[in-house]
């Protein structure tokens, strides 16, 4: 049972009337993440969908202090906040970087690797909507194989999604967790925990994107849930090098009743040009990852 089921922070830090798209998976996740992070937090965010959500100068929809930074610099910006706060004697503030998959997997990876290697005391959150959605759905290294994007408009993406979580594991950091807006209490618990831990913490949230993925806005939670049910996205934690499944993924691992990938694919327009051969390669890719996780959990 989720740890904080009866004690979710009632305070709202994300105000209504923000500029996120209808049905935005990020905004569902962000609301609960901020509730868990609460006061004594400073955010830093690069150019991304989140910049849009935060609003146009001189108003903002988020009541937690935030420093906007350039695209490639997110983790370094967090490192600068940590250094500046330490130097001025403010060591109780949690510094949180929140970047999209472009700002994490691609243009932001150098600064992130540097900050993680130095053991910078901060939380890096990647909200993964599997493409450059803020600029209008271009391919990223987090885009799954077979997806249509505006830069893979005919042939679809030919490569599998990069395993960013493995890259972060290789940095031997204090805490890694994956979570999903389909399971807000799982998300809340993990952010509460991350706030408590010191050192580098990496969180990855799988956030469905109605315009980018091509499904009706009302289905965001359904799509996020199907990603878990099919094993496209897996809920887990790695704490001090120890892997463990959590939430719904844990029961799927125990019962072995994952749904076939097609259940997830068929609901999204981005996969409408996917070939049968691509579908079976994608299924194999997910099965292999799943078995890797099972092995890790048993180790």
């Amino acid at each position: 049972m989720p740890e904080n089921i009866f004690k979710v922070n009632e305070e709202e830090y994300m105000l209504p009337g923000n500029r996120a798209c209808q049905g935005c998976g990020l905004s569902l996740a962000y609301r609960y993440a901020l509730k868990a992070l609460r006061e004594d937090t400073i955010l830093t965010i690069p150019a991304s969908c989140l910049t849009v959500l935060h609003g146009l100068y001189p108003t903002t929809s988020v009541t937690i202090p935030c420093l906007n930074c350039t695209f490639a610099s997110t983790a370094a910006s967090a490192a600068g906040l940590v250094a500046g706060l330490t130097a001025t004697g403010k060591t109780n503030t949690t510094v949180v970087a929140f970047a999209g998959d472009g700002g994490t997997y691609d243009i932001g990876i150098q600064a992130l690797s540097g900050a993680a290697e130095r053991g910078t005391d901060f939380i890096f959150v990647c909200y993964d909507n599997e493409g450059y959605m803020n600029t209008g759905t271009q391919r990223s290294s987090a885009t799954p194989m077979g997806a249509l994007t505006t830069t893979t408009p005919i042939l679809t993406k030919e490569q599998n999604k990069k395993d960013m979580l493995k890259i972060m594991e290789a940095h031997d950091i204090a805490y890694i967790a994956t979570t999903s807006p389909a399971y807000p209490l799982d998300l809340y618990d993990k952010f509460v925990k991350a706030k408590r831990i010191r050192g580098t913490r990496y969180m990855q949230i799988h956030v469905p994107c109605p315009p980018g993925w091509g499904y009706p806005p009302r289905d965001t939670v359904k799509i996020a849930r199907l990603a878990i049910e099919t094993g496209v996205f897996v809920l887990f934690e790695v704490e001090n090098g120890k892997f463990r499944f959590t939430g719904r993924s844990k029961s799927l691992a125990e019962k072995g009743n994952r749904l076939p990938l097609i259940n997830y694919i068929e609901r999204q327009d981005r996969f409408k040009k996917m070939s049968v051969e691509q579908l079976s390669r994608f299924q194999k890719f997910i099965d292999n990852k799943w078995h890797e996780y099972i092995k890790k959990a048993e180790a």
Partner: protein
Amino acid sequence: MAETIIMTGNTAAAIAAKLCQVQVVAAYPITPQTSIIETLSQFIESGALKAEYVRVESEHSAMTVCISASTVGARVFTSTSSHGLLYMHEQLHWAAGSRLPVVMCCVNRGVGAPWSIFNDQQDSIAQRDTGWIQLYCRDNQEIIDTVIQAYRIAEEVYAPVMVCYDGFVLSHTMMPVCVPDTETVNSFLPPYKPHTFLSAEKPRNINPVIFPGMRHNSEGVLCDGYMEMRYKLQEALEKARDVIVSVGMQYAKLTGRDYSELLWRYKTEDAEILLTGMGSIATEATVAVDQLRQEGIKAGVVGIRAYRPFPRKAIQEALKNAKALIVLEKDISYGFEGALCSDIKAALYGTGLNAPLHNYIAGLGGRDVKAREIYEAVKTSLEDMKSKKAQNKTIWINCRR
């Protein structure tokens, strides 16, 4: 008590940062800057300087760390050269746009391709329009003094300051430097008290997206748009001229070393031939001037300390009696002429001064330029200038053409 010690320019820069009690240092090694941050590492690890040192993985991150640490109210320092500076380019705009008093040493080095580790000023000149104040030093004493003054200037006008000096020529050359004592620096430079900073207690969203027009905030106040913010940065740099002068005068009072002008002069009282330049090449020109004067040629040097803001009025005043002008510089704006030369011509526009002007492009990628060669080039120019066709020329010194 101030103490005179023989040291390199890079040691002078590191000692200056320590005297200013910087709170956060973030830097990435690059020749010829590296020994500054090695010296600072020694200071910090030995406890001689109480500061956070973030050993970043790139210059882009170095400037980012400075930006964020400054945003929460810390005094910050970094240094770089050449490709490191170019890699920071995006963040230089971000630091200036954020109106943060970041101070950085740029140890001037040529820019590839092909690779050169040696000195010219193409690196910092290429960053001219990023909104940074740029000050150029001619010797190691000026390096220590300029870094200390840079914090006062930056923290008064809320604009970042780049202290530029020539790689190897100054960075790795030993010279006697009078090091001000801690009490003197403390009285000149109080601890940094930002007028605004980001803290967990006061929610705000710094540097969000801004639209072209002005917009009202939630209290109904009409706030600046993008253009108003840019205008204010421009105003700050315009105002910085007076600040640089007044800070320089206060520093002069404490140390006895003259920093009361945006320029420096050498034998200019009766000079008819005026040589101008920035950094060590202008120092070299003073030796050439002595040689010219031995032959009765009334030459002098007007050295430029502040390149941005550009000292337009001071230059108009300093050059007004010139019968011939020579602009020496270690950079080139490809497809036109030296960048400093263009600026000097622009400053003189409309003043009625129409003296012949030769622009010397010299010392690129560390090509040696001796006082004797400047002397000879000036002699040739003076002959050449007699012809109407040679009133305005760009000449590459010591270069096979």
